[in-house]
């Protein structure tokens, strides 16, 4: 069946980009740079999407940023970061990146530390898993030679590939831990291409942070987009993607306006995008991911470094196995990612900050919030106390900083601000690597195209704009 409605449009563009997150802005800049008439529609009142910011307790907070992965130094042009700077014509020094000090994967009986210098991780593995080091080095060779960004790669379970090189369950679990929690939409395992992307971005390249946090980057992107002549409208969500039976012809906004476009590039997620197409035109669906998170942020009067503590990120797991899966309860307190943003090389924060991320179940939080707001707040408070107990176990015994304020987000918070079904952060397990959809002129970019993290999302927007609009 095809809808025969004729639409009267209020305005017309070459391309409409849905969402002013990293990928939407990356795509927008590329299109505006080459004189395409482009409009970005953003439902929220600020940009950034999953990597946004807000102000609470008179303090600036970053939404999701623990660290930017994919660090590469100035002058490196073939790395993902180098490529994206080149494509957006932004200079490395404009980001003022500060590298991590060191991070540690903490399991019940073993710890593995790593820095942006890969040899440290090799030494750690050689020392703690001497029988595995040869296999590990061979795995690294395979990773280095793998073309993870090929748009043609088929799904391959990463753990089965890795276990051909490594025998120790514990080592495999430890290596996977940061990679899963920093980017997997799949539970317990991930696609091998995705594994390679994450391995390179975290272990071979490493963590950094722009001075001033994610705002610095977003302001730079917005400025670049504006200078190039792109248009952006905040508080304009997309209600419907208009399809004439043959191709996508535009969108209808949440304000009821119909805007015509030759192409629509959606960064809102695969299930979220398909839900905006008329039910009778349904050709496909994408699963809503099951992985979501809570985060508690503590602002303290003293900094971890005042106590001689210099870890940047702790990947904490209190079980022998690492369970990267929906915990089927509010949150899983047996594993966490703990980020200490003060512990990058340059610290521009006036106070101490500790961010504790737990895996969580969307359904539990959603139910509680809709049934009993007071209980929801109580639960958040209880989770904060649990999180602080975990942190105290890892900090030096002398730690006596006073907590100035606590802010918490849950899967329902993510859902409210990003529109992601189920409060997902890494989107749907159904990715479209080449960005195509069953609808002509409608393309996906961002999380559900499959490149993750800040650098990954920006590259996703850039490459989808290049592939589907600029080279056409």
């Amino acid at each position, binding site marked *: 069946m095809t809808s025969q409605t004729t639409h009267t449009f209020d305005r017309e563009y070459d391309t409409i980009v849905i969402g002013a997150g990293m990928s939407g802005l990356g795509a927008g800049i590329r299109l505006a*740079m080459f004189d395409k008439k482009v409009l970005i529609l953003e439902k929220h009142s600020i940009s950034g999407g999953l990597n946004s910011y807000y102000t609470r307790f008179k303090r600036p907070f970053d939404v999701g940023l623990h660290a930017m992965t994919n660090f590469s130094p100035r002058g490196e042009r073939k790395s993902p970061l180098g490529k994206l700077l*080149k*494509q957006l*014509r932004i200079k490395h020094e404009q980001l003022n990146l500060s590298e991590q000090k060191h991070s540690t994967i903490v399991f019940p009986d073993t710890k593995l530390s790593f820095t942006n210098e890969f040899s440290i991780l090799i030494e750690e593995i050689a020392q703690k898993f001497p029988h595995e080091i040869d296999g590990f080095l061979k795995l690294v060779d395979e990773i280095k030679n793998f073309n993870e960004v090929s748009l043609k790669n088929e799904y391959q379970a990463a753990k089965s590939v890795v276990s051909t090189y490594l025998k120790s369950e514990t080592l495999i679990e430890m290596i996977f831990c940061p990679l899963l929690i920093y980017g997997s939409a799949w539970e317990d395992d991930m696609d091998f291409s995705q594994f390679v992307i994450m391995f390179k971005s975290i272990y071979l390249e490493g963590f950094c942070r722009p001075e001033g946090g994610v705002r610095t980057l977003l302001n730079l992107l917005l400025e670049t987009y504006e200078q190039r002549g792109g248009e952006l409208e905040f508080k304009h969500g997309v209600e419907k993607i208009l399809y004439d039976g043959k191709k996508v012809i535009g969108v209808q906004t949440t304000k009821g306006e119909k805007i015509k476009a030759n192409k629509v590039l959606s960064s809102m997620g695969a299930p979220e995008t398909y839900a905006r197409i008329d039910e009778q035109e349904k050709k496909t669906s994408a699963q809503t991911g099951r992985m979501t998170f809570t985060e508690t942020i503590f602002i303290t009067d003293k900094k971890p470094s005042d106590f001689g503590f210099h870890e940047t990120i702790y990947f904490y797991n209190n079980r022998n196995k690492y369970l990267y899966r929906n915990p089927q309860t509010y949150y899983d307190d047996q594993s966490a990612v703990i980020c200490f943003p003060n512990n990058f090389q340059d610290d521009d924060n006036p106070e101490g900050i500790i961010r504790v991320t737990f895996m969580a179940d969307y359904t539990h939080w959603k139910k509680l919030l809709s049934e009993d707001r007071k209980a929801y707040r109580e639960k958040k408070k209880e989770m904060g106390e649990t999180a602080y107990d975990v942190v105290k176990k890892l900090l030096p015994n002398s730690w006596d900083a006073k907590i100035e304020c606590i802010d918490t987000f849950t899967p329902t918070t993510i859902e409210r601000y990003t529109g992601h079904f189920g409060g997902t952060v890494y989107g749907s397990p159904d990715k479209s690597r080449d960005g195509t959809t069953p609808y002509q002129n409608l393309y996906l970019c961002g999380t559900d195209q499959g490149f993750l993290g800040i650098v990954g999302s920006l590259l996703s927007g850039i*490459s989808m704009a290049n592939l589907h609009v600029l*080279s056409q």
Partner: protein
Amino acid sequence: MDKQEVRQVVLDIIADVALDEDVSNLKDDVALRDQLDLDSMDFLDIVMELKKRHQIEVPQEDYPQLASMQSCVEYLRPKFQ
């Protein structure tokens, strides 16, 4: 436009696309890829800039013509007439 002018046009574009790379000592008869860190994304940019600045269209099948500075000039010069 004479050869030198076409060369300058291409050089200006490469300098913008390959931000902060030294383009002053480019050899005309050696592939650009072998002298600069240019990938397929960069070649797309060179093509896009030619279109934007000089309304010159380079169809995808002609991209190999842009391999070296010399072949760029030979291929593009008639398009500037």
